[in-house]
């Protein structure tokens, strides 16, 4: 593949993620923080996010599967996930967490289960997309090119 083409693909791909609402402007901020002194910043952060989130989602599944659900445990997890997802710009994950929390407050176990599913879904989606994104970037870099700066015109 041509370098220019790859770069174009990357741009289009990234744009689509924003348009779909999978990512928001916070992700852009992260990208802007990446520079020569910090070349892997974004992937570093995102990797951390994946690690943390995997753990949290696991804990959440366990908590909700209990006979008696302890919402005092569930809520902080969801809260943390909300915080970290918003920090990296995983908008849909964050939104799902918000809904999740409101059901936690209501102590609605049934709804919480559904919410958890929703959150997981969004999470795997963004994880998937971001991994693809990084692959594209790596290809570009491997071909000796520069990753184009993302400019959101919308």
């Amino acid at each position, binding site marked *: 593949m041509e370098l220019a083409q790859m770069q174009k693909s990357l741009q289009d791909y990234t744009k689509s993620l924003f348009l779909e609402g999978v990512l928001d402007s916070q992700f852009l901020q992260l990208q802007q*923080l990446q520079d020569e002194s910090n070349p892997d910043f974004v992937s570093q*952060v995102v990797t951390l996010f994946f690690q*943390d989130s995997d753990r949290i989602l696991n804990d959440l599944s366990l908590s909700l599967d209990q006979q008696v659900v302890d919402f005092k445990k569930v809520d902080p997890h969801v809260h943390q996930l909300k915080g970290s997802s918003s920090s990296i710009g995983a908008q849909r994950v964050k939104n799902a967490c918000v809904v999740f929390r409101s059901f936690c407050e209501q102590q609605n176990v049934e709804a919480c289960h559904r919410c958890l599913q929703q959150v997981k879904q969004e999470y795997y989606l963004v994880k998937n997309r971001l991994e693809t994104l990084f692959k594209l970037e790596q290809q570009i870099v491997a071909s000796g090119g520069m990753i184009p700066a993302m400019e959101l015109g919308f």
Partner: protein
Amino acid sequence: MTVEQGVQAVDQFPVGMRVLAVDDDQTCLLILETLLHRCQYHVTTTDKAQTALELLRENKNKFDLVISDVDMPDMDGFKLLELVGLEMDLPVIMLSAHSDPKYVMKGVKHGACDYLLKPVRIEELKNIWQHVVRKSKLKKMKGIVTNGESEGNSDQNGVRANRKRKDQLEEKDEEEQEQERGNDKKPRVIWTRELHNKFLAAVDHVGIKNAVPKKILDLMNVDNLTRENVASHLQKFRLALKKITNEAKQQANMAAANSHFMQMSSLKGFGSFHHSPIPLGSSQFHGGAATMRHYPSNRTFAGMFPHVSSSLPRNLHNDGGHMLQGTPFPPLENLHINSNNKAFPSFASQQSSLLVAPSMVLEGHQQSTSPSFSPHLEINKRLEDWSNNIPQSNVHSEPDALGWNMFGNSTNQTYFCRDTDFGSSSAAQADSLQMKQQHENIFSPMTVAQLLRSSSANEGLFMGQQKLENGFMASDAGSLDDIVNSMMTQEQSQAEFSEGDWVWVA
């Protein structure tokens, strides 16, 4: 981008500012760290609040600012905030994904300098250095107040100070040593307004019954102030208060004898205000610094009153532009009765005794009321209308004219000057003016009022409940508007008080 940031900073200060970042979420912590680096701060991170505390305790001068997440597993962020504020007095910024205002409120109450919402943006972090500057400026100012006094003091200890010829700091140290040694050349403490206000705040805090010099000294938290200074000041304060209360009682008794006074029970809604008569022109008051002040007992009352500007004196000339500020009182519409009523002569007999409802502030200028007190403005407008309808002579019949200060704080040294004119009283006016000039806010409103209250001059002051008008003060007025409305209806329904009742609103 970094160059740009460097240029933006006016002085070099924000660059290299040392920040301690605390967040249990690794992702957020990394992002925060990077953002802070981008702002050219020096960053230390930890994911445990306990570790953060240890780092801070190790050397509190190592950091300029702390940013902390609110929800952390090992310690509540608010707790950390409190501890840092208490122990190290560093500015702390809270960070949270909770946008709920009550969390923000909690943060502010616990002493947070700022509350940021996640996800944090770099623009917000660029500004956090302001908190450091602000805080250190406050510290400096506090130092200046006390330094100013010690500077004056060092002259008195001239010989010893000269001997050392070092900078002021060392002189100060020496004075401190001297004070501690308790030698006879104690530097004289000048009780400035600010200092006195601090004193009052401290007394207020512990309560007058509990006011011991040691406690007050601790609360005041002023350098170079000794227990002895506070003790002697406290003694003077107490004596002055005793004087006021005695006089108050005296006047109260005199006034009670007349029994032309009605109490406005609606005042209860504003926190049992009591009033003490303050003789104008009475020789008792000369030199008695404390005696002129009568203040509303309710601290919140201060929030009720617009700040009266010193343009008040104009009112003394009874140009009819009198308005009641704060709680509206019937007296205005009753005033017109007083001009020809029988109560007046009897009142005139104690012309010099003025029962002042602390909340009665006559002011001719609506403009001087602060815009934030709009309900009062509204009331004032209405009252002004009434007062305008009152024949000129009636204006003079205000029962009280008094220079007294509603707000004791140093920033609002405003005066409510009441017309003392009972028909004659140009002298009284002059006196009130004079007194106003003499006594500039020595005491804060609440403390004196509290003291007065506690001395139970209260009940004696609310005299003559006998002639309560129908429904006028039957029940606590829920709000100022209610009072005004009830007053207005009464005004309409009863054109005059036939037997010249003097409606005294306390």
